[in-house]
């Protein structure tokens, strides 16, 4: 066989492109890389999707580089300079307690990023685990797990999150847990569907014949295959999660003061909306932008993955 030489080729400069475009990929890694590359090519045809991606990247950059972008501390108050309109000193003005709105929006990006990451970390594994176990074992296990999933699905997300957030008490982490509790069922369904199609695959049968345990099959062979589509799905749902988080913040169940969170900033700013619109506009626009960005990226991803989208 010539696999080794092929691989050596691909490692060479210029060979990468060839490897990427090889008509017959060798191995899982190459094929999935190729898939991602193909997907990216399609994705890059969506101007709106690209715009969304740009905003998300911007969010990450802003969150990471927050201290470099503003010299203000987002929690330091200045009662004498409260509700100052936007100016050179305060780019987006100040809020009710004289805090710099720009700094709060910038640092608020960290909170948003924290929400996004934590939800992903909780939801993806949970959904994956439930979905794959359900799909792999089938029968009564499947029946029970899917019934539980249905129950969670039969609730509107915000309402369920509201209830749980209230039950768990205020605080951003509790809010995230509450949101996660409502966000895993679609993931589980997806993972289950993928598992069902994988379960019958020949290579799984082969592995099973070699005497691998169910746990090993699920974790080593099925789970990794489900991850890409799960990631896509989580992205699709992220816009909704951000809006839900903002809604919780608006109802006083979000981040604890004084730490900046866009939803609660908007909530406390609405009292001043008519006279000092910047206090609410800045976090409101931030929420809208990020949520819109995820919506756009999600839409584009959906088109890329949807076979109907390729004409």
């Amino acid at each position, binding site marked *: 066989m010539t696999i080794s030489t092929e691989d050596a080729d691909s490692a060479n400069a210029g060979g990468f492109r060839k490897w990427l475009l090889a008509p017959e990929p060798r191995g899982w890694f190459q094929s999935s890389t190729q898939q991602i590359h193909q997907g990216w090519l399609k994705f890059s045809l969506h101007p709106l999707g690209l715009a969304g991606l740009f905003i998300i990247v911007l969010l990450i950059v802003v969150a990471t580089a927050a201290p470099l972008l503003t010299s203000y501390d987002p929690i330091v108050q200045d009662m004498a300079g409260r509700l100052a309109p936007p100016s050179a000193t305060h780019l987006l003005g100040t809020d009710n307690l004289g805090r710099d709105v720009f700094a709060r929006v910038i640092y608020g990006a960290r909170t948003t990023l924290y929400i996004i990451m934590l939800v992903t970390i909780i939801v993806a594994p949970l959904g994956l685990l439930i979905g794959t176990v359900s799909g792999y074992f089938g029968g009564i296990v499947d029946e029970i797990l899917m019934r539980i999933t249905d129950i969670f699905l039969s609730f509107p997300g915000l309402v369920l999150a509201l209830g749980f957030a209230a039950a768990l008490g205020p605080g951003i982490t509790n809010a995230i847990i509450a949101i996660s509790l409502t966000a895993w069922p679609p993931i589980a369904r997806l993972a289950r569907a993928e598992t069902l199609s994988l379960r019958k695959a020949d290579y799984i049968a082969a592995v099973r014949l070699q005497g691998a345990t169910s746990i090993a099959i699920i974790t080593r062979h099925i789970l990794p295959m489900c991850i890409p589509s799960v990631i896509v799905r989580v992205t699709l749902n992220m816009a909704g999660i951000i809006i839900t988080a903002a*809604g919780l913040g608006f109802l006083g169940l979000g981040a604890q003061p004084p730490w900046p969170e866009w939803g609660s900033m908007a909530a406390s700013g609405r009292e001043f909306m008519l006279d000092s619109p910047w206090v609410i506009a800045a976090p409101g626009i931030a929420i809208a932008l990020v949520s819109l960005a995820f*919506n*756009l990226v999600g839409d584009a991803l959906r088109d890329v993955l949807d076979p109907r989208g390729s004409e």
Partner: protein
Amino acid sequence: MASAELTSKQEATPHPALSLLRRLAGRAVAVVTTLLGLLFLTFSMGRLLPADPVLAITGAEVSKEVYDRVYNELGLSQPIWMQFLSYVGKIATGDLGMSATTGQPILTDLMTIFPATIELAIIAMIIGAIIGIPLGVTAAVRRGTIIDHIARIVALAGHSIPIFWTGLMALFIFYAKLKLVGASGRIDVFYEGLVTPMTGFLLIDAAIQQQWDLFQNALGHIILPAAILGYYSVAYISRMSRSFMLEQLSQEYIITARAKGLGTHKVVWRHAFRNIRVQLLTILALTFGGLLEGAVLIETVFGWPGLGQYLTRGLQMNDMNVVMGSVLTIGAVFLTINIVSDFLYRILDPRTR
């Protein structure tokens, strides 16, 4: 969508009537277990809430003896599963408990407030459908063009802008500046109490009693929150319409219709759209559930005396029974909508009849 999955597990049985019966039975079991699960969720939510169920009944000033007596009466000394069973039993008899903040049985409260929310959500859904469906269909027909992109931005913006912000802004513009609509509540104060509640739906009641100025006034009050709520749902409706439509437009019968000489408008609306009507109905039903969710925020802003405000106030006041009752109601409505839309699908689509 859950329901579609549920019904897809059909087995090939010899006799169609038997298979139907079996399917119905399976469906019933699924509904009952889901309902039980729903009850369990609300129950555990109630147990987790920091509110003291005893104090909710007795009021804060209570002697130790009374406290203990009520504690036992509520069955709080029993094992948790017994408590759950008695909770289920109470719900089965329509006893959702008393509200600590309104002093009324939750069921009575829900009877007066839920129609307000339903009315709002229905109008919102109509608005959402009137904007969302043509938007989605147009986007599908003009796929990839600038119209498609604009339609997408318009729709997604509605879903991305926080609803409380849109709400206050709209009040400022349409109420305060333009004086086009009413501000708070379901009706102007001077019409308050002039209509006898019959159905609980103010618009319907006013129409039945032929109080047209009152009807108009109520319409002026509902239109703004409903429009904002409706706009919120446009994203979902238009996205689904677009994707359904794209699927239909790639079908062979579209070629047939065009080969007959029909123009785009006829092909789209007479042929393709006819095929997505039933799907859209399902989507609208699901949207309706989502609108109940949106109502939670919009009702606070507009002082709309509905379920959303009831729930948020219950949360703020630690009124456990209110929270449990409202969440249960919304969950039950969701479930019902799922079943009904599934049913509608079967009834209305000639292929599944």
